[in-house]
């Protein structure tokens, strides 16, 4: 079984989508399209009447909703839980949200995620995004980040969730990136063509049960979100 990404022409290149129950890293520099990729992935699920969990480190839920609306992805009435690990910095409180007040408190984080999974368990919960898991490394020692990520990915898998976790390339060291890769089922890298900087590129570095295309995939960001060239 595959989970479609909602990105035009991408699913065809990866045998129909991301293998279900897998955890995939989305790596790239700022502005490379990671967040839009996540938004699109989440919306595709919601559109198909699936439920989703969206864990936000870098923006509050309202901002994410607004940027989704720009692409015409309206999520009112859809079943989604935002876990807000951003607003603690500004003291903002939003309704319908699980707020994490202490980003370094992994117990609290783990309990809230488990509660969210429990809440949506019988509501066709299929997808989860974490944007960006690398932010955790700013507040928690690396060794513990790795331990926690391992518990987290195992929990997502056992809860039958297919997840995307974004990684800001400059925030974590190569060694820690390697650890994260060992805990996950795939890595998709987003970036730009070094020869023509306006050309966006995507590399499927590895993906479980999939023969990924070897060459870089060219894509653009249009008013329909990410669109991969045929």
């Amino acid at each position, binding site marked *: 079984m595959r989970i479609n990404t909602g990105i035009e022409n991408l699913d065809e290149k990866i045998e129909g989508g991301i293998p279900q129950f897998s955890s995939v890293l989305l790596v790239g520099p700022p502005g490379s399209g990671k967040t839009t990729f996540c938004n699109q992935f989440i919306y595709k699920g919601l559109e198909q009447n699936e439920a989703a969990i969206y864990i936000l480190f870098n923006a509050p839920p309202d901002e994410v909703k607004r940027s989704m609306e720009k692409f015409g992805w309206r999520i009112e009435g859809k079943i989604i839980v935002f876990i807000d690990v951003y607003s603690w910095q500004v003291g903002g409180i939003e309704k319908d949200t699980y707020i994490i007040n202490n980003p370094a408190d992994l117990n609290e984080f783990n309990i809230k995620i488990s509660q969210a999974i429990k809440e949506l368990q019988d509501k066709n919960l299929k997808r989860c995004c974490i944007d960006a898991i690398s932010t955790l490394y700013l507040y928690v020692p690396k*060794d513990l980040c790795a331990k926690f990520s391992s518990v987290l990915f195992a929990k997502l898998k056992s809860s039958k969730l297919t997840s995307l976790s974004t990684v800001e390339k400059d925030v974590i060291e190569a060694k820690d990136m390697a650890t994260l890769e060992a805990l996950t089922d795939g890595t998709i890298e987003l970036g730009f063509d070094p020869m023509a900087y306006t050309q966006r590129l995507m590399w499927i570095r590895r993906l479980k049960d999939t023969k990924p295309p070897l060459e870089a995939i060219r894509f653009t960001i249009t008013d329909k979100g990410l669109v991969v060239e045929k």
Partner: protein
Amino acid sequence: MKISTGIQKLDEILGGGIESNSAVLFLTGTLIDKSSFSQHILSTRILEGDKGIYLTTSKPPSVILKNMYEHGWESEGMVFIDCISSTLKQESDASYVLKSLVTRPEEAWEETLKLLEKALKETPGLKTVVFDCLEVFMGVGAKRVANDIKKLKNILEDTKSTCLFLFTDWGYSKEELEEVCNVMDTVIRLDTIEKKLLWMNYFQYDESPKILFQITSVGVSIYVPKILVTGPFGAGKSSTIHSLSEKSVSIDKLGTTIALDHGYIEKKGLVCDIFGTPGQERFDWILKILSRDVWGVILVVDSTKPETFERAKEMLEKVRGYEIPFVVFANKQDLPNALSLEEIKRILGFEDVIPTSAIKKEGIEEGLKILFDKIFKLKTI
């Protein structure tokens, strides 16, 4: 010397409390609010005259103080070793502040130990320390952590300090855990059991039974998930539940329960979910369903109607009450034609019969206490 944790059941399984001037490890699962658990203990120690020292690596002191205040826990004069605020880029007015938790693990560990040692030496009198939490420093290796704690134990002894180390097991190896556990004087486990999508917290020391608990608005409370109240039609089961419980719901029709009653007891240090059964024979099929996972049974009989006692015994049988702790409430003792306690005991053939009046709320609490004592004497999960 043993000192109390303020959690009666925990003191009991520890043989009177935790050893003073020692190192205690709370080894916890990933779904436990270990901070709150330790704050309850710390507040008890402060009330008994200790100075409280709180080392935090995951939330700023203000958050800890707020949580303690909301639970009504004493935090007077608490000294903070703040290892997180600077990492979160927040101001800290704590007495001891760590510069950064995340840059170099060795440096963070050494600095933290230095701050703790300083706090221990500079704070006068008997002290209880919460070290929240130790696994943050596992990046330096379990051996290193264990060795340094061994050294720290001398300082604990010298400065008359008891240290509660909190440690969540995020999947460490058996060897790593053993290193850390072996250096401690006492290791208490806090974990969760998942059952039908519900998590139940428990604590356990050594080979003791697993004691379930919840952290409620008043603190750590022992949790009894299911007590069943049964008995013949009209014996006063619903009234008994109502008088036991603040919040109770009865699904009834003209004053007689047709489905079930539910109540919730929250007494000092104890919370309990309590379920009633209907008394009529045509609903006996429900008894079997309700009897699953029951911890104890209260059999309510009408003291004025000995002719219903056979039916009462039949119901006890049907909820498998003979296999688990049970007590009999000889209800309606306030009525003039009530049989005497001795007579009721003789007819039923049971010893634990408590005279009660649900209407006048008499004998109910005493009876419940007897049942809980029986449960905790026997119950292991």
